C-alpha cells in the first residue's frame, strides 16, 4: 500500500516539516502501524511533485527521531516501538490546549473557569 501525505503549498511551513508532522500524526492516530512500509523517496516525490531532496530530508529527520527505520535495500519502515511518538503527540496537543487557555485568561476568565465551562459543554 502506498501511504502518502498531503502537502499544503499555500502553507508557509517548510514542506519537509509538513511531511514529518503528518507521518508522526498518522503514526500517533494508528493510521500507520509499526513495520508499515513508507513509499520510497522517488514515489513520494513524484506523487507530490516535489524535490526528492525534500523527501529525503523529512525521512532523515524521522529516522533520527527513531520513528522510522531505513533498511538500505528494502526501503523505509515505521519503527516497532512507537510509544514515544504517542507520548510526544499527546504532549504537543496538551501544549496547544494550554496556549489556548492562556489566551482565554487574557480575556479575563481563569483556568478553573475554563475547565468548568468545558465540562458543561459536554
Amino acid at each position, binding site marked *: 500500500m502506498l501511504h502518502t501525505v498531503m502537502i499544503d503549498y499555500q502553507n508557509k*511551513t517548510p514542506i519537509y*516539516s509538513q511531511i514529518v508532522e503528518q507521518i508522526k500524526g498518522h503514526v500517533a492516530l494508528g493510521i500507520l502501524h509499526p513495520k508499515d512500509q513508507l513509499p520510497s523517496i*522517488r514515489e513520494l516525490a513524484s506523487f507530490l*511533485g*516535489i*524535490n*526528492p*531532496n*525534500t523527501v529525503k*530530508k523529512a525521512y532523515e529527520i524521522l529516522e533520527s527521531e527513531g520513528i522510522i527505520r531505513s533498511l538500505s535495500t528494502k526501503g523505509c519502515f515505521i519503527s516497532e516501538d512507537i510509544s514515544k511518538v504517542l507520548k510526544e503527540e499527546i504532549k504537543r496537543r496538551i501544549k496547544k490546549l494550554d496556549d489556548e487557555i492562556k489566551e482565554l485568561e487574557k480575556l479575563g476568565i481563569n483556568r478553573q473557569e475554563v475547565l468548568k465551562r468545558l465540562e458543561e459543554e459536554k
Partner: protein
Amino acid sequence: MIKVTHVVKRFQDKEVLTDVNFTLEENGIYGLIGANGVGKSTLLRLINGIYAPDTGTITFGKEAIFDCSKAKEKMFFIPDEVYFYPNYTLYDMALFYDAIYPSFNLSKVKEMADELKLSMEEKIEHLSKGQKRQCSLILALASRCAYYFFDETFDGIDPVIRKVIKKWMIDLMVEEKSTFLIASHNLRELEDLCDHLAILYNGKILFEKETDDLKSQLFKVQIHFKKDLEKDDFASFDLLSYQKIGSIITLILRGEETEVRKKLEKMNPDLLDFIPLTLEEIFIYEMEALGYGVVE
C-alpha cells in the same frame, strides 16, 4: 561539482557580471532569480562555455569548462530562445543530439514524446511555442546528462505538462543524481521545485540559500503591549524591520521560531501573533537587509 569563482563579464564597456561566485553541488535543483536584464542568461552561457569569462574561472571538477568537450558532454543547456534546424523533426533533432551526447537515450525520446502526445515526424517549426519548449525539454532529459540548465524554460508550458516534466526531473535526480539550474524571473515558478535559491542582482549573486532555511528563519510578528515600547526595547533581537502603527508593533525578525517566541512572551505582550511570510516577502526583506531596493 561546478564552481564559478570571481567571474567578470563585460560587453563593450558595459559590465554585466561584476563578481559572481557560485557552486553547484551534485544532485540538487537550483533556482536562479533575477529581474529582466540582470545577466541570468549571460551567466548560463558562461557556465556552459559559450562565452569565456573576462576574468575568473568556471570549473567542472578540476577542468575549466570553456573549450572542454569532456565537461560539456555532461551538461545540457536550453537557452531562452530554443533553436532547431530548419525542416528538422523531433526525430531528426534526437539523432543530432544522439551523435553529440554519449549518454543520449534515443528510446526515451519516443517514450516521452508519446506521453506528451507530440509527433516525432512533424516538422518542429510547425509546432506551437509551448510545444517547441516541450521538444527541447524532451531532448534535454533524454541526454541523461549530469547537469541541466534551463533558461526561463517553463515559461509558456501549461501546468499539466509541467507536472509530467517535473516527474521526469525527479526520476533523473533519483536515478542519475542529476543537477538542475533553472533561471527565472518568476519566484513562484521555482518555489515548489528548488532546494536552493540564488538571487542575481547588480552583477553579483546576492545570496544563495536552502529554500527551507529561507522559509523558516524569518517571520513577521504582530505584538502589542500595555506599556509603551520603542524600537530600542527590541535591540536584543535580530531585527530587519520595525513598524509602529497606533499601538501595534509589527516586526520582521530573524531567528529560531521557538526561541524568538519564548523571548517575546517574556516581555508580557497582550497580543502576540506570528504571521508567516511568503517567499516573495522574504526575498524583499533579505534584499533590503543587504541594502538593496525592490526585487522585481
